[in-house]
């Protein structure tokens, strides 16, 4: 049984969600304040397997809650649920650290499937982490592992190891890095990233991608201001190089 925390200030929606997730066999707790969710997850260290987070909350909004969680290195699987469904809002949600984003009104079956998918991912991460701890070295032959120089990206665990440091990636960071690696050696446009990674139309403001790139560079580049692996292709987008020319 998984534990789900629902942060939703609309009482009817919160109760409807609680009823359905409980019917699916999960233990559910609800709160109507972002501050309360942060206190429970960060201060009290309460253990939840997934977080369903509304954006338009009284006090701290969902974007701020997600950002604070990720800054505190809390990588609880997080699905944002909100009436704000414009592409800019979706990108802002991903940028603030959401793993998935579903605009209201939503289809119940899809919502449950998305949350179950996040829970499965958490289970994989947990089991693979245990196995990795036993083996000490990751299985670089796996399609979910990519190695370049002294760095190893573990897409299944959403982890990136650079030297002695291990970074936990959000689902969106991981998906973007996987896409860039898949196209290694070739430039990819911002519009292509929007469409292929986030399923967003090309009219969307592409600046959010730049913020993701800045974050990825902090993980993989020795000097993020002088990138060698993740380069800007002026006027087009970005290009990943696994073996940069010195």
């Amino acid at each position, binding site marked *: 049984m998984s534990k789900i925390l629902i942060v939703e200030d609309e009482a*009817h*929606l919160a109760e*409807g969600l609680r009823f*359905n997730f409980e019917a699916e066999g999960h233990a559910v707790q609800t709160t109507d304040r972002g501050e309360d969710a942060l206190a429970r997850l960060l201060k009290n260290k309460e253990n939840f397997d997934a977080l369903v987070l509304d954006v338009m909350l009284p006090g701290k909004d969902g974007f701020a809650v997600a950002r604070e969680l990720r800054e505190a290195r809390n990588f609880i699987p997080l699905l944002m649920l909100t*009436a*704000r469904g414009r592409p800019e809002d979706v990108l802002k949600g991903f940028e603030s650290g959401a793993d998935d984003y579903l605009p*209201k*009104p939503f289809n119940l*079956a899809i919502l449950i499937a998305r949350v179950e998918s996040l829970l499965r991912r958490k289970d994989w991460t947990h089991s693979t982490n245990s196995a990795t701890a036993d083996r000490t070295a990751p299985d670089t032959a796996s399609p979910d592992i990519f190695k370049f120089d002294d760095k190893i990206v573990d897409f299944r665990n959403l982890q990136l190891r650079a030297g002695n440091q291990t970074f936990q990636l959000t689902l969106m960071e991981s998906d973007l890095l996987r896409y860039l690696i898949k196209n290694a050696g070739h430039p990819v446009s911002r519009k292509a990233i929007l469409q292929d990674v986030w399923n967003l139309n090309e009219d969307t403001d592409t600046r959010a991608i730049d913020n993701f790139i800045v974050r990825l560079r902090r993980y993989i580049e020795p000097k993020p201001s002088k990138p060698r692996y993740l380069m800007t292709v002026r006027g087009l987008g970005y290009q990943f190089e696994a073996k940069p020319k010195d």
Partner: protein
Amino acid sequence: MAAAVALNVTWIIFHWRQVVPLVLGIILFGVLIAGMVVNTIFLVREIRRNEQQDSFLNAITHELKTPIASIRLYLETLDSRPLEEAKRREFYRIMLEDTDRLLGTVEQVLKASQVRQGSSRQNWQEVDFGAVVRDALGLARVRQHLSDEAMAFGSEPSDGITVLGNAEELRTAVFNLFDNAIKYSGEKKKIVVDLLAPNIDTVSLRVCDHGVGIDRKELKRIFKRFYRAPNPMSGDVKGTGLGLFIVRSIARRHGGDAYAESEGEGRGSTFTMRLPRIYRA
């Protein structure tokens, strides 16, 4: 004095080649500065208007989509899960409440658009304003499950307070004032309603709450279309920013006005709607 003026004028006449460009330069500079000031004022206004429209779009999106999302969630639950009769009834009740909320928002938007379209005097008649206020107060109590103490008349309104106008619009304005007081009263509601006739040709409806209050700087702005006062104490209150705009527009259409008073945040507010009264001796 006269000699000094004469000397100056003489100097200007003899040096007109230097004076003319200097005067023209000063005028041009003044025009430029005035242009910049006017431009900045318009820019700030435009930014404010855009911000208000953005905030309205967000609010209306939330107010429309949230009840729809809730109704859909409960319909799908009813459709996909075996439920006991009591649970089914509970879900039907929730969906009905959401439908009412949705209807309320749609009506607010339609009314706001209606009141902006000039001052047609169609359907105007003599309206027993006392009866309108009494009915609206009763309805607000029932809809919001309020006790008699939570919302009451300060003094019972006297009979024969009549105004000339559109009864439906007046009902909307009164109900919006009550709804506003209820929404911003917090948990412990104590709303006092007074219908006064300060003189023979004026009727005044005062709605006094002990809620979150309003910053004095915001007292005028809250009647603007789409405007929602940034009050940390009212963070939970959802709305479209149209309710008070509708109140003031209706009051003005009827030859009256609406205004707010408050000692500041956390110190309650008093809203007053004044209307011309038909007085018969």
